[in-house]
């Protein structure tokens, strides 16, 4: 049996969340993502303090507990990661667990394994079945909702195209004597390439929808006193940052969630970027620089009423190196223009605002344009399982694309069957039934 994982605490904001990983590979997965003691070297019933990091960046400080088979809930090797509460952090960790070899646990699968491994007695078996079937039904309902969602519509668009392609190949194979024109290798390859690109885009847009669901991790950056905190307050509608006209007032990262249309920004107002003699302030600045690099979005604030200075240029440089989207926000638009906006290069968009006057509508509309594009799933019911199926299909379609021309189509076909299987998993449909009806409904074949 494979290694499964899930968040086993309620999906709500709370003090602590627990991510549970169970199966032969549980310790190996933990080894890859946990910095601290090596989980695979730990004894059962012991725990360790450390952190979870991705590409060297810390997601969260955690406590990791190891249970060794058979002395665990499921009877397999189990690792439990307790992280700081909140859906966002725990989902990021779960995502990381999946990309390191675990698969999402089905409804009730931990309990199922516990039972199959003899950890739960016979008397509890029926109760377990009730739970599983209830969860299964709830899952079906959720799946039903997902089916109406736009992500599902988009995925079905591609599964239909694969069905069509497979139907075409099957008709051509199963009815060689009929007047059916076969597809050339180039045609098949180009259709597969197109499908693969589409799936890739969907997979990427999933990331986007995850961001939207959990809030866009946003940094407001700018030199001291350019109006960052005023902007943050204008967006959140409350005075949270200490706003004074003295440069260097904000010394730490202050977080706030604000809703702009359909999207949620998780705002951090950072200390102004400048070199400071003040040790405490310098530490804040270092944190701010690091946070800019990882943020989903940077709103860099510039002053309309003064020329670009070295500190502004440093912000532009930092933005250029950052991974997320960047908006240049020219504040104090109500004052006389001195700033040469032509020098604000490398941004995904430039807007003029007046934070002090609460005039930030141009920023809001740009944010909506940027994050609610047409391919972004507006339904955010999309779960990790769908994403996994999508990614599996994506890699198989890629494999088939390379195979076309170097092996015969019957072999390519079985790879495509698998890809389609992955996409159809959500609907519970079967490849062979789908393809056979496709042949009969679109090809005129027979005696």
């Amino acid at each position, binding site marked *: 049996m494979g290694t499964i994982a899930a968040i086993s605490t309620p999906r709500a904001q709370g003090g602590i969340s627990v991510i549970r990983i169970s199966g032969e590979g549980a310790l190996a997965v933990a080894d890859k993502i946990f910095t601290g003691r090596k989980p695979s070297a730990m004894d059962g019933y012991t725990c360790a303090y450390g952190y979870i990091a991705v590409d060297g960046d810390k997601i969260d400080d955690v406590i990791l507990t190891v249970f060794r088979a058979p002395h665990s809930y499921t009877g397999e090797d189990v690792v439990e990661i307790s992280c700081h509460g909140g859906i966002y952090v725990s989902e990021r960790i779960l995502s990381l667990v999946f990309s390191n070899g675990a698969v999402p646990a*089905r409804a*009730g699968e931990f309990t199922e394994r516990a039972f199959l491994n003899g950890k739960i007695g016979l008397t509890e*078996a029926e109760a377990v079945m*009730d739970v*599983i079937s209830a969860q299964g039904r709830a899952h079906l309902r959720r799946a039903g909702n997902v089916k109406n969602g736009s992500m599902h519509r988009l995925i079905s668009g591609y599964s239909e195209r694969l069905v069509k392609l497979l139907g075409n190949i099957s008709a051509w*194979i199963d009815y060689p004597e009929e*007047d059916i024109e076969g597809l050339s290798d180039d045609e098949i390859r180009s259709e597969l390439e197109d499908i693969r690109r589409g799936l890739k885009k969907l997979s990427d847009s999933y990331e986007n929808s995850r961001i939207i669901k959990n809030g866009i991790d946003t940094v407001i950056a700018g030199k001291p006193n350019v109006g960052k905190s005023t902007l943050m307050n204008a967006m959140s509608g409350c005075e949270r940052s200490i706003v004074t006209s003295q440069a260097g007032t904000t010394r730490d990262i202050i977080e706030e969630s604000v809703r702009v249309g359909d999207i949620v920004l998780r705002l951090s107002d950072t200390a102004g970027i400048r070199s400071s003699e003040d040790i405490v302030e310098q530490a804040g600045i270092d944190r701010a620089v690091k946070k800019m690099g990882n943020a989903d979005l940077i709103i860099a604030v510039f002053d309309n009423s003064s020329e670009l200075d070295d500190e502004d240029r440093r912000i532009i440089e930092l933005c250029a190196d950052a991974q997320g989207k960047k908006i240049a926000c020219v504040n104090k638009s109500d004052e006389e223009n001195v700033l040469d906006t032509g020098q604000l290069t490398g941004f995904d968009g430039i807007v003029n605002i007046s934070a002090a006057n609460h005039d930030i509508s141009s920023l809001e509309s740009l944010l909506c344009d940027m994050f609610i594009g047409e391919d972004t799933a507006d339904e955010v019911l999309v779960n990790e399982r769908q994403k996994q199926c999508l990614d599996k299909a994506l890699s198989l379609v890629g494999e088939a694309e390379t195979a076309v021309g170097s092996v015969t189509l*019957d*072999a390519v076909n079985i790879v495509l069957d698998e890809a389609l299987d992955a996409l159809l998993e959500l609907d519970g449909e079967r490849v*062979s039934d789908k393809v056979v009806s496709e042949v009969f409904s679109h090809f005129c074949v027979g005696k």
Partner: protein
Amino acid sequence: MSYYVDEFDVAVVGAGHAGVEAALASARLGVRTALFTISLDSIANMPCNPSIGGTAKGHLVREIDALGGQMGKSADKCFIQSRMLNRGKGPAVHSLRVQADRVAYHNYMKKVCEEQENLFVKQAEVSGITVESGEIKGITTALGAYYNVKKVIIATGTYLGGVIHIGDVSYESGPDATLPAKHLTKSLEEAGLTIRRFKTGTPSRVHKRSIDFDRLERQDGDDDIQPFSFETDRYSMKNRVSCYIAYTNEETHKVIRDNIGRSPLYSGRIHAVGPRYCPSIEDKIMRFSERPRHQLFIEPMGLGTDEYYLQGMSSSLPEDVQIAFLHTIKGLEHVEIMRNAYAIEYDCCDPTEMYHTLEFKNVKGLYGAGQFNGTSGYEEAAAQGLIAGINAALSVLGREQITLSRSSSYIGTLIDDLVIKGVTDPYRMMTSRSEYRLILRQDNADERLTPIGYRVGLISEERYRAFLDKWECIRNEVTRLKKTSVKPTAELNEMLTRKGTTPIENSVRICELIKRPQLTYDDVIVFDETAPELCYEVKEQAALQIEYEGYIRRQLEDIEKLRKLEEKKLPPDTDYKALRGLSLEAAEKLNKIRPRNIGEASRISGVSPADVTVLVIWLASLKENGGEQ
């Protein structure tokens, strides 16, 4: 008045392709077998296409032969043109198809049956079965003859309740102007079987002298003929005829559209379900109105006749419309119809009422095969006949009956689809129905099934030895190709460059070269001085196993997954409604279909993954319970 005549171990009702195969298998296993047919002159008749094989169907014939059945051998004897379809599309989908001499095939099969020890061929209409306490006891004929029998195999094809439709004319009939079986349906219903009505059709036959062959495309057979049977000498075979291709046109379609109201299918007189894959010409034109033309094949019915078959033109339109539309076709302007096209309705069962052995769940000793089970096609019929015949005989002998898994064969896939998924229209085998098609190739049918045929007792000791030798040879050659290297000689590199692949600098294992898409086994093997002299079949298998190694491994892994699920056996007498946690739909389906294991349960539509989990847990709890007792 009924009167006692005789007793048999196994009685087969119907001597079409299913019935003949069933009767021969049963008799060859040593049990006293009777084969009943309405007309001795229709044994193994081909009332439709005079051809055997084709995509996926060719696989079935090879599998029948590998198990020790008859169809492949008879087709090898009576073929008049042979072609391997799908050459170039990959080994999994190579399919053998032959034109057969219809009368010669009938005569040959009739003689095989007559000469078979333990087999008694009888002309009579079976009108009823006798069932006592849920078990078959006997059969009665329309004349009142009563036979004590232990097992009955129903293989009634389109004879059972047969009604023919041509335009607005309908009459009770079997295929090819035979008598229909009018009484048996009632008796089967009384025994508890669900009877349904399906429909199929056949095109007209025309006279050779009225065809303008110069205006048609000709299609010849292969030069290098492959036999169906693993026992036929491949060098002894010869093509004798050509087939021809013609096309319908706008004018043809107009005639049909103008007269569509006179088709019993469109006027609503036929209510039975017809096959999706084999539409009549009027169906093709109404459903695919955008197609400017449809293809038809003009095929000789045999060497001793001038009748030609028009494949692709099945119809139930009135005779005058048939004449009119055929005359619009280039090459058929003056064609003379000898037999009309017609549609035929017939009674069939619901195959989900059977086990994988093809025995009915509710009537012990009653088996079904062929069109009666909801399939279509001679090959599908023969495959089921063979399995039903083997199982009826094994059961008489007190031996364990056989079932074939999906991963073993197309036959296994066919039967699994029938009894687990059921059918809504006549079922035709297709390569796309098998998820393991890279393993289930026509070339390795013997590897997959001959050991089973041998254990059953239909494969002779001699044939089995030869089979073992051949596969040992293949294994040795594969091992040798993986170990042996060739040196980079000028000749070798010249060949590599010529074939568009990179030359080698150091010694390379032969298998690595064979894996290159540009190269074949034959290209490479000439540079291997140590290569042994091998026969065609061995070379073919060795090359396939190397070229497709990765894909084959992939499929074997899938098969292993299936095997694990199928190892989880479900108790046969479970009441799923009493099982907590199952959805109502799943419980109903499971109670009806009664899958043997978790793998089968998971293939039933309406049984969700959550239901499967419930079953797995319940099974485990049973085991634990059993262990404690």
